[in-house]
C-alpha cells in the first residue's frame, strides 16, 4: 500500500501544479451553478438535515471515512494473508 500512497501523492502534486490558477472547487458546486443558469426559478426543496459546523470538522469526518475504509481493507487483507500463511505451514 506504500506504493499506492506515493502514487496518489505524486499524482495530486502533478495535477495541481499543472493546472492554472484555478479555484479547485467541487464539481457538484459547479453543477449547482449550472442548474441555476438553466432553471433560474428552481429553489432546492430540501436542505441537509445536519451540516458539519466548520471546514475543519468536515475534513475530520472525511478523514474518518477514509480511516474506516482503510481499516477494513488492511485488516481483512492482512488477516486472510496470515491465515493462508498459517495453513501453509
Amino acid at each position: 500500500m506504500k506504493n499506492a500512497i506515493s502514487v496518489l501523492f505524486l499524482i495530486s502534486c502533478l495535477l495541481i501544479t499543472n493546472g492554472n490558477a484555478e479555484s479547485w472547487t467541487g464539481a457538484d458546486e459547479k453543477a449547482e451553478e449550472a442548474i441555476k443558469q438553466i432553471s433560474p426559478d428552481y429553489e432546492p426543496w430540501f436542505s441537509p438535515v445536519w451540516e458539519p459546523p466548520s471546514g475543519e470538522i468536515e475534513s475530520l469526518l472525511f478523514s474518518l471515512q477514509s480511516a474506516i475504509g482503510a481499516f477494513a481493507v488492511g485488516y481483512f487483507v492482512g488477516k486472510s494473508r496470515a491465515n493462508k500463511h498459517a495453513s501453509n505451514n
Partner: protein
Amino acid sequence: MEGFLPPLWATFWFAVSLPAMAYGAVRAKKLINENPRNRALLAVAGGFIFVLSSLKIPSPVTGSCSHPTGTGISTMLFGPSVTAFLSAIVLLYQALLLAHGGITTLGANTASMGFIGPLAGWIVYRGLKDRVSMRMLAFVVAVVADWFTYVVTSIQLALAFPGVSFIKSALTFMGIFALTQIPVAVVEGIFAALLISYIVQTSEDRLTRG
C-alpha cells in the same frame, strides 16, 4: 446537491435503486452464508469504496475537484447489485454526516454510483475476463465504472433540468462531471490495479468462477 433534484425525479431514482439495493443486500447475506471468507472480501470491497469516495481529487481538465467512486473492486468480485448496497451505505454516511450528496438525492446517487456505473464496468469485466491480466482488468473495470457513474449523473441532471433542449443540458452537465472525471477515474483505476494483487490470492475462486 441536497434538494436539487425535483421530487418527481428523486422518487423515480429511488424506485430504480431500491430494488437493486435490496437484492444486493440479500445477495451479500447469502454470499456470507455460503462462504465465511466472503465476509472479508465484502469488507475489503466496501472499505475500498469508503476510502476512494472520501478523496476529493483535483482534476486539471476543468480545475475542479471530484470524488472517485471506488466501486471497481466490488463490481469485479460481486457484480452491480451488491455494489449498489455497499455504495448506499457510503452515500448515507456522506449525506448524514457531511451534507454531501443528500438524502433526497440518495436514490439517484445510488442508481448512478452503485448500479448503472458498476453495471457498465461489469459488462466490460465479462467481456475482457481471461483476455487481459488481472491488474489490467481491475484498472479498466474501475475506470469504466467510475467514469460512467458521472456520465449517468450528467444525464440524471439533464433529465430533471432539460432547459431549452435535453441534449444541450446533458452536454453542459457532462462538461462539468464527465470531463472532470477523466483523470480522477484514471487515478482510481491505478488504485484498483494496486489493490487487486493484494486480494487476488484470497479471491481467486470468486474471480475465476464469476
